[in-house]
């Protein structure tokens, strides 16, 4: 993914499929990522309601709060598209603005996650407390790291665009980072639904 700027230049004109190698590589990488999140989500779902001690999901979740931060993250997919559109229109000032906007929304989401993790920790839920803590923090933590990597890529794109190093076609690297960004957003939809929205069965004996 870090390769978006250079190798694309060379591989684009003559490829066997006519598609950019960088784009194909990004798709294959995302396909591989599906199995990574698949494994993490499987572990969460398998262990739902299996914790032997509290706190349980219903004790700590604040659905309203997380809904807002989820909305912020999903909104960033829109700004990502807008920045790609601006790049296609060769309006680079607007492209930078939307890239920065996307990064800011991403940062808001990650900041919200840090706050949420801290709150949970103070309410007695850590990664070692019980199965819920282990699976929850691992799954959402991996997602948070992915968002953070995405933010870094967005910021690098902005820096590169100022250096004039985005090759002849800035829309292309923006599109590549966009693919990754949308993927991370879509994964969050799955996580938010499975982890937060669908209520976890209570273990026997818990009121």
């Amino acid at each position, binding site marked *: 993914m*870090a*390769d*978006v*700027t*250079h*190798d694309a*230049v*060379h*591989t684009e004109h003559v*490829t*066997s*499929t006519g*598609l950019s*190698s960088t784009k*194909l*590589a990004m798709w*294959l*990488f995302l*396909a*591989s*990522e*599906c*199995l*990574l999140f*698949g*494994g*993490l989500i499987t*572990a969460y779902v*398998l*262990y739902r309601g*299996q*914790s*032997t*001690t509290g706190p349980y999901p219903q004790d700590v979740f604040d659905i309203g709060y997380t809904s807002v931060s989820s909305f912020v993250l999903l909104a960033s997919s829109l700004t990502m598209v807008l920045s790609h559109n601006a790049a296609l229109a060769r309006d680079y000032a607007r492209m930078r603005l939307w890239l920065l906007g996307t990064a800011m929304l991403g940062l808001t989401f990650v900041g919200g996650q840090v706050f949420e993790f801290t709150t949970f920790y103070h309410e007695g839920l850590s*990664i*070692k407390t*019980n*199965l819920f*803590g*282990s*699976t929850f923090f*691992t799954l959402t933590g*991996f997602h948070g790291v992915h968002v953070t990597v995405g933010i*870094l890529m967005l910021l*690098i794109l902005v820096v*590169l665009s100022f*250096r004039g*190093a985005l*090759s002849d076609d800035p829309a292309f690297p923006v599109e590549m980072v966009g693919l990754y960004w949308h993927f991370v957003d879509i994964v969050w939809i799955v996580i938010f639904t499975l982890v937060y929205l669908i209520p976890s069965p209570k273990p026997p004996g818990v009121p």
Partner: protein
Amino acid sequence: MASVTVSTQKGILRRPMATTGFWSWFTTVDHKKIGILYGVSSFAFFLIGGGEALLIRSQLAKPGNTLLNADQYNQIFTMHALTMIFLFVMPMSAAFFNYLIPLMIGARDVAFPRLNALSFWVFLLGALFLNSSWFLGGAPDGGWFAYAPNSVVDPGNGMTFYAIGLLITGIASTVGAINLAITVINMRAPGMSMFRMPVFVWMGLVVQFLLAFSLPIITVALFQLLFDRRWGTAFFDPTRGGEPILWQHMFWLFGHPEVYILILPAFGIISEILPVFARKPLFGYQFVVFSGIAIGFIGFGVWAHHMYAAGLGPVANTAFGISTAIIAIPTGVKIFNWMGTLYGGDLHFASPMLFAIGAVAMFVIGGLSGVTHSIVPSDYQQTDTYYIVAHLHYVLFGGAVFGIFGGMYYWWPKVFGRMLNEAWGKVQFWILLIGFNLAFAPMHILGLGGMIRREYTYPASLGLTVWNQVSSVGAFTIALSVLLFIINVVRTQAKKRALETDDPWDARTLEWTTPCPPPAYNFAEVPTVHSLDEFWHRKYAEDETGRLVRVPAGASGEAHPTADGHGIHLPSPSFWPLVISLGFPLLGYGVLYSWWLIGAGAVVIVVGLIGFVLEPSVAE
């Protein structure tokens, strides 16, 4: 010489330019040099893993032996497996794929040359990290599949090294897999359609997809194991509701595709060697290709046959027994195709051919013993005994390692411009074949006689002594054969270039149209491909009676390029892949020892990635 574009940028982001000399190996992005780096380092690990095997066989050479204690034995057999699988066969396959795939499809390099360098350096540093555990309190000792909760409660740092070491080499393999898969899909020369690709390239493509889709699964499991060990999570802790069986599922969901990751490259090598030395096209090319693809798919649906004894119940065991029996079909198709290729051929028993036939024959034995434990009740008798050890060595040593040796003899002149000595090669083959069967055939008998896998010693009263001694003699015979190979290599490399022709085997595929060794740019002119076995058809046509006649040199436009490749743009070397990869062991030691090191590792990786992105492109 190819011109290497001089970058105008100054300072730290300036790209290194040297393409020769000692230091150029650290910055090279040439797929051929990276292939050689992979080959040399994985062969070094082969010798280390082999040394560990000799220690195991020395310990088992007599009952009640005290050469090693139980703890040392556990570490040595675990590291023997990890080294042979992750640090030898996988990277050695990567060596062949890296070197040969671009040459076979008529490309000048892989799709992402710098990522290629990155995947090599991350692999090497991950491998060194894993082996550094020997000096830091003890190596992993929980077996290569590290069953939980044993691997969680295991004291010492060994299993933590296991988790982190495999995570790092897994990252290397994922990067390499994406790169090579895209190379095959997108970098083919004009006319090189998917069904004109050599079978070796096809097997390479299947392996890269297997890697890309199975490694993330073990990545998750390794993180869970690591978190359980290091940060007290409850994933595999039964006292807190965790289920150790989850580890087994995750491990084998990766572990079984891994088996095909190990063997398919050898299948590809065999499929290249047999037609050349039988002087016939591969029999049923499409069948070989599609059965390889089928193996790739079905390989994801058989994992629980490793877990019959875990108590999944009769329904699951039956289902996985059936799918396991089914996967024998495409494998059998390949065997028959290879036999069909040999049938009626004009057979030349040069060393590559001997190794290829040896690989097929030994793999058949291992495959058949594999079918015996696809049957659940039979497996109950065999699981965790030496019968399994015999089976896995027949497929992995008999199949993969024989194939790899065949590939080395076959492509050595291509890579180094010198022929390995044929007489030595044949002697090496026969000693290896005898030693291999002496070492592993008795394990069938030992296993059925009740010898448990992984026990560090046995009492004389069990009557296992004789066959164990035969096996140990076999192990040292294998070592002798490997020693002969090394002497052969040293003798060959000490000679001046002694190759009269660039096509010593009268081969069939594109890589032999280039000089030996190929120039940095591979092809002075990108070839146009008209058929499967392109090079063969450039050399031979059929007369009216159907007999082969040689096409006069130059008549088919194959004329050895007189162009000197001037003006071909090649990617400049880069040191950022090495910088990035240095961050991974730092992260690893950080997890073990200090948050400061984690921070340092993360900084190195991020700085390296930024440098990687910002360094000037060669096009400037």
